[in-house]
């Protein structure tokens, strides 16, 4: 079974700002996420929330805005039911902010007095799981790590799931948040980023760009000079988002391939939507 895979919407939250179906301007001075004054209030979008760690809160806010915008859109195929949504997010930074927060607590209060509510978020899947809690999702939930191509690999594997008919829609992308207060908790990612791509099974004439080809591999030896080296997870996610943003404006298919310092490789081709700008 090969089902066409459309990218019906995407959202980015970077140090440069928040963008929906467009890439925010880069070059912000700090590594942390930009302020988002219009962010949806957690109490409104996730009333059952207890005390989510900051990464989980940010992820819920961005995903809510993305899914709500998709569901409100008219003149396009209806949005997939949330209970049928899989979540597959790439991360190399993992839960480093919660990890360091928990360790700090152990140092301050003693080995026997770690914070249980912080420990819960010391899993890479904890922040994505907050999406399931907030939106009552019932699909599969996984994180993927493949060096600086973790987010790209998540999109590739999400596309494969849809193409094989294993799920109807998948919220994919990357979560690289390495800030705790004013401190960096990971040296892997130079800048924080949340990148969410909504992939859907769609008819070939759906009004969105489609992923026509995707591949992830591994090559410990340096790959060809023509291949782009993505030194950080955010650079790979921004390249993927930029190729989708270009495809949304029509023109030729966007083909990109690259590698990571860890030896992972990826390539993808995004074809423009047949009807032009959605």
């Amino acid at each position: 079974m090969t089902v066409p895979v459309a990218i019906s919407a995407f959202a980015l939250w970077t140090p440069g700002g928040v963008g929906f179906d467009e890439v925010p301007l880069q070059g912000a001075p700090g590594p942390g996420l930009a302020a988002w004054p219009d962010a949806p209030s957690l109490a409104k979008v996730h009333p059952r929330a207890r005390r989510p760690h900051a990464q989980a809160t940010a992820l819920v806010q961005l995903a809510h805005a993305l899914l709500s915008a998709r569901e409100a859109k008219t003149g396009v195929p209806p949005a997939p039911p949330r209970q049928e949504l899989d979540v597959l997010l790439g991360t190399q930074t993992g839960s480093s902010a919660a990890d360091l927060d928990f360790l700090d607590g152990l140092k301050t209060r003693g080995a026997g007095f770690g914070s249980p509510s912080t420990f819960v978020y010391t899993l890479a899947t904890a922040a994505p799981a907050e999406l399931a809690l907030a939106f009552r999702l019932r699909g599969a939930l996984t994180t993927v790590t493949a060096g600086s191509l973790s987010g790209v690999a998540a999109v590739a594997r999400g596309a494969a799931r849809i193409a094989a008919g294993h799920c109807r829609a998948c919220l994919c992308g990357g979560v690289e948040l390495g800030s705790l207060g004013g401190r960096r908790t990971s040296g892997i990612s130079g800048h924080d980023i949340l990148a969410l791509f909504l992939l859907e099974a769609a008819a070939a004439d759906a009004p969105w760009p489609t992923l026509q080809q995707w591949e992830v591999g591994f090559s410990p030896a340096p790959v060809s000079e023509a291949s782009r080296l993505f030194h950080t997870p955010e650079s790979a996610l921004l390249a993927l988002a930029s190729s989708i943003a270009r495809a949304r404006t029509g023109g030729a298919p966007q083909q990109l391939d690259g590698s990571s310092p860890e030896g992972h490789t990826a390539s993808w081709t995004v074809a423009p939507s047949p009807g032009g700008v959605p």
Partner: protein
Amino acid sequence: MPADITSVGAVTGHGLGCEPLLSAVLAGRSAIRPLTRFSAEGLCSTLASEAPSDEVLVAAASRLGQPPARDRATRLLLAAAAEALDGRDLRPSVRRAVVVGTTKGALELAVQGWEAGGVPTEDVLGAPARALALACGARGPVLTVGAACASSAVALGEALALLEDGVCDEVVVGGTEALHPFVYRGFHALKALSPSPAAPFDAGRSGLSLGEGAAVLVLEAPGCARRSPVAVLGGFGASTDGFDQTAPDPTGSGLATACHRALQQAKVGVEAVERYHAHGTGTLLNDRMEAAVHASLFGGRDVPVYGIKGSVGHTLGAAGALDATVCALTLRRGVLPPIANLQRVDPSSPVPAVQGVARPSPGALALVANAGFGGINTALVLRRWEAGR
């Protein structure tokens, strides 16, 4: 599409190798003992199932021809891989992928970085998978998957998907987790640790015991297997509860959904299931949830329940791969292992548990269940391999 499991390797509290693990599990022996690797003073438990020393692990992994790993989770994985890959053709010409499930990977490297006042630059989560990929000459995708305590069950599901996609001919799948004070203190903070060895489904249970270990399985597309299979992985299913970050949905509907999805992928009905390999952590919430799952799936049918966490502890990200390994080996041998430390089944979570001694079982089809924080549920369908089927 099913996949043949053609090699297995394991490291647990019972030592190096699958044979010591299988012998201990069949005898109902537990490796949960007083912790020696770090202090648990002042915590609600001082027990764990500890794997062999780093020296033993490094020596076992040395035949892979790789430099010694810098972290224990990778050392565990490579020691298990040395068994699974022994005698296999590791030419790079084989389209080989690697998928590893773990919750914390090489956590100790990050902790060392923070404690030195720096910012860790290590690929903490991906280090074990990368080391395994270098050891086996993988050129296909090399992925680390996280799904809390179902991580390596998801790794097996992802391996099945990669074979189905046709992007590789063989997948080396692993699960690994090392004991670390960080995690031990975290489970203490959650009040989840038992002061006595974990006794899943027992009326007197009082929580889980942590363990460490690794398992490595080689999966090949049917008909392409270069070895006689140990068992067949027929299907995988996953779901999310959307209920709570730590507690499972008490109705078990999420795990039941994962089981139905796995059976659907394997193209078999629930009536064909002849054994249920439980997640079986030994916590009240898990055991009750799984009893509810058993009741809803099998409607009172006497499908035997067993599990290995009373024997090897809860190995978190390695649990799914170790469960699949033991399930495959016991299916091949036609035997059902008892649940270690189970004395009397809790009447409030009644399941037809295998108690006391191992018993013969002609059953050829098993469901393996795993669940994790975040409400993550997975199920695997394993089938005994029979020539010509």
